[in-house]
């Protein structure tokens, strides 16, 4: 099969064409949208005209073409009645140049025509709706895209003012119905207006005075309705703002819920929430009233017009200046007038609504000081490293006029040296680092690197050549590996390969993306820039990641993740086969150390005393919920297997015995006591029920036990671990029969359940079990003193012996870090962020108190290895412990927003210097 890569092909073409040229999508698409860097127009109409004029015209043209057909389909019934059916019709009749001798054939032809027109009109309607729908959806997509792009360009400080709770609904729900409006924006007023004009014209032809009467009140309506609407619009604006407050409130409560409860703040929050809901109620109700009032006024005026017809028209008929027929015709026409007029009014209201919504959203997405959009999309011609000096020229950062956070800082910092910035916590040192990395734009002054103002550098240069890590770095909800590699994903590097059919589909998707003005880069492509990490391929990258993990002292943690993590043999055939080796080697090590008793390994022919009865029966790891240990007694297949080997009754008996023991032991343990959680087979809340069941049993014997009671009792023995529980209910004979059941269970397993269990097989890697369990292939003995510790050392030994540490760390890289890195500790998050930034090998690395969560010893170690890693490259480190500055080439001391002294540590380490004071205070 031919594999083509549409992206590569398109990108090549795009390169030869000037960006933004109206290329037809079939020929080639620029990957960067033509509007890049400012797609939001101030009003919705400008947005519509700029981005969809040709498509709007297309809709209008098709609508115009449909008019004659529509008109003819309205006219045809009259012809059928008057010229074919009516007894006064004259024959032979003439139709479209054909002559018809009798009325029957004429009727047949006309009815055929009618049917054809029904199809044609329906077809037009369908096609126009499709056109409008597609137009609307494309524009909605474009609008959302633009909003999101604007969001990414927000200045950092703006995020302190807006909350996600306000922003999210703007992009998601608030703009949702703009799409529908955009589809209708041009064609509806034209269509309905045209209809209106035609009818009015018809009336004028019948009688100019009556025509004038029909539209006499339009000016009144045209004056009154917008007036009424204006107030409604203002209320609508207020409503949107208030609803945003609700969203804000909710999102704030979610993120602050622990502090809220800690301070008993729930009632205040509820009261505030109720207050806002009250405001919304009032607004909505008022809007409701006004809307209906507008409708009422409108209807009243519309009903007023017939008054003129009857009075003036009647008078004219009596006078004989107007024929009776004409008056009837005008009255009928006036009825038709109502529909387009109402449509237009309705449209006017929707239009106003859309206009306001658009303006309100757009105004929120244009804060002061936004980053120039071109900086995001501009790709440098060549990848030149940052060299020379970082020059700070009078850099000032001010919140307002008086409060200066960084005050006129000037310095020349060579960017191949290691520079420490020290100072008290509110000295402005952290903000200075943010200004240096352009995260905060300086209020005045400039930051230059190698003579170039960083404000003008595209993110493609700054984001790749410069590194920045804060003390609270963000991790994405993905695997650790993806998080680490995220610093290498700037652009698609190796295009994805598509098979012929998928390539076609991909091409279509790409074309559509282009039509909506979205960025058409392929997310399926490999975005990892191996060259940026200084490696050639995936394998080398992994090796590099391991080195970096060691540098930031993260390898130990990742190793543990690896032991606990899962590996799919399909994706990691080599690693899993090595782990199988380890499984076999473990036996040797245990033997050697005399530890064979510490672990009871799985053996298909033996009952495992350290595993539950359920595990002994299934002899595998469950995949998915089909064989949930809690529900085995209700599982029809399990019951079938037990029946087949005749175990069910004996297990029920075992269940009775267990229930009796549990009831005896736990009857006077208070409910909720941790003993239940830790030791009991029966939950505290279920205990009374079992007491009742046992009571029933002693009364009426085992014979007529209900099915529910049986199942309840049957569920108990499944949890037994014979080595641990010593309940003496599963004797050796019983164990032998469970082995029998194990065989039957595996042999009879129906096809549809095959995927739900991964059987223990000494020769096969178990993808459903963690790495450690795969090496262990058994259970740690409950009864052996210190077994767990012994086994752990044995495993570590095997891993070292087979040189598997790296394999396991690799498995650890697949660990999911959770939302915002929540499954990692603060120290682990900082280490991950350091590893991530080291991986992309920036020319300058700015660390903003990036190791605060590490303990002292680790901090020193990490500092040392990062300094080694960055030998000859730039390192600017905002330290939270001044003493660490000793190891840097140059020290910058900040105090009260000002740079107070700088020089080598030795130069500054003298009595009376600010640095000495800082050192003394530590």
């Amino acid at each position, binding site marked *: 099969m031919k594999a083509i890569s549409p992206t590569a092909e398109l990108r090549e073409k795009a390169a030869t064409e000037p960006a933004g040229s109206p290329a037809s999508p079939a020929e080639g698409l620029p990957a960067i949208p033509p509007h890049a860097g400012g797609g939001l127009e101030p009003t919705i109409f400008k947005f519509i005209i700029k981005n969809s004029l040709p498509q709007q015209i297309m809709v209008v043209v098709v609508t115009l073409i449909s008019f004659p057909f529509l008109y003819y389909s309205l006219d045809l019934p009259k012809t059928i009645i008057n010229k074919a059916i009516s007894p006064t019709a004259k024959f032979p009749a003439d139709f479209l140049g054909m002559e018809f001798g009798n009325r029957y054939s004429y009727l047949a032809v006309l009815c055929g025509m009618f049917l054809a027109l029904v199809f044609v009109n329906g077809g037009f309607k369908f096609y126009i709706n499709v056109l409008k729908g597609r137009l609307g959806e494309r524009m909605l997509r474009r609008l959302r895209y633009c909003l999101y792009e604007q969001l990414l360009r927000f200045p950092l400080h703006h995020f302190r003012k807006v909350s996600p709770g306000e922003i999210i609904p703007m992009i998601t729900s608030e703009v949702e119905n703009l799409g529908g409006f955009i589809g209708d924006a041009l064609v509806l007023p034209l269509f309905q207006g045209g209809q209106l004009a035609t009818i009015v014209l018809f009336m004028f032809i019948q009688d100019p005075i009556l025509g004038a009467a029909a539209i006499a009140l339009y000016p009144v309506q045209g004056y009154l309705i917008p007036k009424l609407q204006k107030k409604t619009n203002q209320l609508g604006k207020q409503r949107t703002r208030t609803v945003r407050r609700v969203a804000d409130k909710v999102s704030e409560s979610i993120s602050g819920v622990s502090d809220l409860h800690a301070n008993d703040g729930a009632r205040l929050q509820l009261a505030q929430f109720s207050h806002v809901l009250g405001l919304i109620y009032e607004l909505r109700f008022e809007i409701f009233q006004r809307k209906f009032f507008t409708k009422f006024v409108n209807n009243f005026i519309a009903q007023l017009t017939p008054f003129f017809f009857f009075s003036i028209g009647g008078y004219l008929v009596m006078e004989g200046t107007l024929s009776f027929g004409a008056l009837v015709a005008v009255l009928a026409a006036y009825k038709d007038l109502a529909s387009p007029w109402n449509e237009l009014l309705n449209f006017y209201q929707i239009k106003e609504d859309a206009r306001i919504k658009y303006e309100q959203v757009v105004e929120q997405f244009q804060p002061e000081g936004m980053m120039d959009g071109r900086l995001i999309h501009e790709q440098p011609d060549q990848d030149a490293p940052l060299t020379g000096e970082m020059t700070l020229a009078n850099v000032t950062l001010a919140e307002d006029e008086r409060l200066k956070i960084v005050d006129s800082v000037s310095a020349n910092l060579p960017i191949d040296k290691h520079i420490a910035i020290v100072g008290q916590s509110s000295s402005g040192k952290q903000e200075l680092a943010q200004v240096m990395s352009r995260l905060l734009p300086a209020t005045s002054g400039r930051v230059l690197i190698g003579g170039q103002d960083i404000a003008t550098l595209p993110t493609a240069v700054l984001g790749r050549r410069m590194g920045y890590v804060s003390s609270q770095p963000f991790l994405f909800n993905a695997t650790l590996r993806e998080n680490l590699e995220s610093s290498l994903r700037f652009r698609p590097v190796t295009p994805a390969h598509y098979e012929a059919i998928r390539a076609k589909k991909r091409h279509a998707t790409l074309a559509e993306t282009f039509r909506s003005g979205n960025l058409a880069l392929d997310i399926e492509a490999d975005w990892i820039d191996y060259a940026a990490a200084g490696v050639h391929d995936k394998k080398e990258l992994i090796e590099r990641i391991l080195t970096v993990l060691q540098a930031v002292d993260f390898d130990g943690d990742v190793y543990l993740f690896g032991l606990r993590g899962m590996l799919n043999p399909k994706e990691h055939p080599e690693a899993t086969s090595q782990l199988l080796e380890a499984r076999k080697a473990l036996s040797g090590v245990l033997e050697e150390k*005399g530890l064979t*008793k510490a672990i009871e390994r799985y053996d298909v022919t033996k009952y495992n005393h350290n595993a539950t009865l359920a595990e002994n029966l299934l002899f595998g790891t469950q995949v998915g919920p089909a064989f949930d240990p809690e529900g085995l007694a209700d599982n029809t297949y399990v019951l079938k297997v037990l029946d087949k080997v005749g175990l069910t009754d004996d297990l029920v008996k075992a269940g009775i015995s267990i229930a009796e*023991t549990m009831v*005896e*032991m*736990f*009857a*006077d*343990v*208070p409910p909720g*006591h*941790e*003993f239940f959680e*830790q*030791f009991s087979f029966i939950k505290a809340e279920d205990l009374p029920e079992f007491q009742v069941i046992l009571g029933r049993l002693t009364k009426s014997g085992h014979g007529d036990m209900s099915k529910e009671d049986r199942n309840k009792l049957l569920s108990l023995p499944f949890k037994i671990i014979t*080595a*641990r*529980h*010593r*309940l*003496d209910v599963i004797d050796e004979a019983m164990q032998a029969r469970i082995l029998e059941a194990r065989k039957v269970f595996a042999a009879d397993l129906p096809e549809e359940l095959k995927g739900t269990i991964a059987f223990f097989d000494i020769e096969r890697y178990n993808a459903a079990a963690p790495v450690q369990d795969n090496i262990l292939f058994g259970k740690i003995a*409950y*009864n*052996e*003193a*210190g077994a767990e510790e012994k086994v752990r050392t044995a495993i570590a030994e095997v891993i070292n012996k087979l040189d598997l540490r790296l394999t396991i760390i690799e498995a650890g890289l697949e660990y999911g870090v959770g939302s915002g890195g929540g499954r990692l500790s603060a120290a682990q998050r900082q280490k991950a962020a350091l590893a991530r930034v080291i991986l992309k090998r920036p020319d300058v690395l700015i660390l903003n108190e990036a190791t605060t969560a590490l303990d002292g010893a680790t901090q020193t170690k990490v500092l040392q290895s990062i300094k080694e890693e960055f030998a000859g490259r730039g390192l600017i480190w905002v330290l939270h412990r001044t003493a660490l500055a000793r190891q840097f080439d140059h020290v910058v001391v900040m105090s009260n927003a000002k740079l107070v002294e700088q020089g080598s540590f030795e130069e500054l380490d003298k009595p009376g210097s600010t640095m000495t004071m800082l050192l003394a205070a530590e």
Partner: protein
Amino acid sequence: MGLQEEVELLRRIPLFAETEPSKLKLLAFTSERVSFDAEQVLFSQGDPANAAYIIIEGEADVLVSGPSGPIRVATLGKHDFVGEIGILCEVPRTAMVKANTRLTTLRISKELFFRLLREFPHMAISMMRELAHRLEQTNSKLQSALTEVDRLKKAS
């Protein structure tokens, strides 16, 4: 050997002699059956006391460190209870206990022991009675010892 035998075992221990059977069963069920290899150490002198052991099978030596290496002060066998004073008084281990042969024990952790006492005051009372009994015995032994000392003093 199952739960029932363990209960019997516990009953033989004077400290638990007066505790009702269902509580002894709970105590047995919630404690761990732990085995040691010969030469394996149950606990060392100076360790924090975190559990008491009842010997089910095998032998163990009680060793106290002396100037020239550890001195064996006692040998424990089946049904012996060791380490209970440590968990009651919260003092570090005063001696080392080491398995002499393959050893099977019932391990009662300090945490569990105190939780049972808190939960079932009746158990605490019967234990208190047992301890008082021991104290009384010790007192009378001390009394006779002192009389003996006096007698010897007078004699010399």
